[in-house]
């Protein structure tokens, strides 16, 4: 992926829920091999933007182009998504969960699936042989397993919505370290978070959102002048 072509292009994206406009015309380009932190207050539209990128939302108007395609279905194999709920089945173990989700991406036992799954679980710092159901994990472990699920298909683009929420510091730092390594391998990562300080050194760019628009993009963790507030 060359540095000059954007991997994600958003063009005047508008998303309305009835009378409420969650996204009021977002236009931006995002490039490969970078880690973007999307910040802003509640209601700024961060989650809506991420869900639209993940194909879970249809835009009211505007265009989204990911990896050269405007139809999410064509590139869904290359995208990984993670949110604050774990997107895992509480009654199954980590391996069982990932074994199932791997199938959805065409990774089966015949394609060395088990190895891939074990490797991905190890990479997030968890034990693949843990038979405990995911529902009994701590929040930190659960989020790490959820991240493992998002990484299963070796996606080129990772969309993470509040991955560090209620997560202990150790797990959070581990995740950030892993994400930075993933970014170094050339993947593009979008992280929506309220805990910007965690990404202070890992993020390549901070994208600030307010009231459904991008109000600034900075290289450092400092809120753009227009909003008149300093970073938390």
């Amino acid at each position, binding site marked *: 992926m060359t540095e000059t072509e954007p991997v994600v292009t958003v063009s005047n994206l508008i998303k309305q829920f009835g009378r409420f*406009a969650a996204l*009021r015309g977002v236009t931006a380009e995002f490039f490969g091999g970078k880690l973007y932190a999307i910040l802003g207050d509640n209601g700024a539209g961060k989650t809506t933007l991420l869900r639209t990128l993940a194909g879970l939302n249809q835009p009211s108007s505007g265009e989204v182009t990911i990896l050269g395609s405007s139809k999410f279905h064509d590139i869904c194999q290359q995208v990984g998504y993670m949110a604050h709920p774990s997107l895992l089945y509480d009654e199954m173990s980590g391996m069982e969960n990932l074994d199932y989700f791997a199938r959805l991406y065409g990774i089966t036992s015949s394609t060395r699936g088990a190895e891939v799954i074990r490797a991905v679980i190890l990479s997030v710092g968890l034990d693949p042989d843990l038979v405990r159901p995911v529902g009994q994990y701590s929040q930190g472990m659960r989020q790490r397993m959820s991240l493992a699920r998002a990484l299963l298909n070796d996606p080129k683009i990772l969309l993470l919505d509040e991955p560090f929420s209620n997560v202990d510091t150790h797990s959070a730092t581990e995740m950030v370290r892993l994400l930075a390594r993933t970014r170094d391998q050339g993947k593009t990562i979008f992280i929506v978070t309220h805990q910007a300080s965690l990404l202070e050194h890992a993020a390549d760019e901070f994208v600030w959102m307010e009231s459904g628009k991008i109000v600034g993009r900075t290289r450092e963790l400092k809120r753009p002048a227009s909003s008149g507030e300093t970073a938390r």
Partner: protein
Amino acid sequence: MKKAFPILGVLTAILLIYALYMALVWAPTERTMGNVQRIFYYHVPSAWTAFILFFVNFVASVVYLIKRRPAADIVALVSAEVGVVFCTVVLVTGPIWARPVWGIWWTWDMRLTSTLVLWLIYVSYLFLRRFSSSGQTPALAAALAVLGALCVPFVYFSIWFFRTQHPQPVMGGGGSIDPRMLHVLLINWLAFSCFAFLVCWSRYRLEKLQRDVDHAHASASLLDPRGSGR
């Protein structure tokens, strides 16, 4: 377009009055049931009108599923609402007719029973429209409408066979019908259809206006988020 509405309104009113006269005065009195039978001229055309409206609902829903045009969704909504009203007329005139003639309030007559099931299906459609949140309603409702419409032949077939196995009093139109009665029937049907069309048109305009207002609010909130509310 706007001028046509009052003209059509007047024409429909005249037609309805004429049809009423035909039904209550001009039509011959039925031999066995007497004047009570005249309700037949409301009972049957209402059923036919409801049927047409539900068919319109089916077509509009299919169009919406393929083309996603908002106008198709409004037509589907409107035709279902007015169709349910006409269906209700059938279900109310049925017992009014049955009681003096057969001494019972309800008969599992084929038309009445089928209309009841149709009524249930389209009322459930209206419930779905009310209970789903605004963004998804058109698509979900259209899917339900298609399933409901496909159910209709099954409803008629099953009740027809059931009735031949368990015969019930038949409400009108059993054998051959006096040509004068048929004439009155058709006139009433024409009047009802015009009336239905007018009501649908009116409701369509109302709904379109409501959606335009919502759209304007939404556009306003695009410019100024503080002024918007959910």
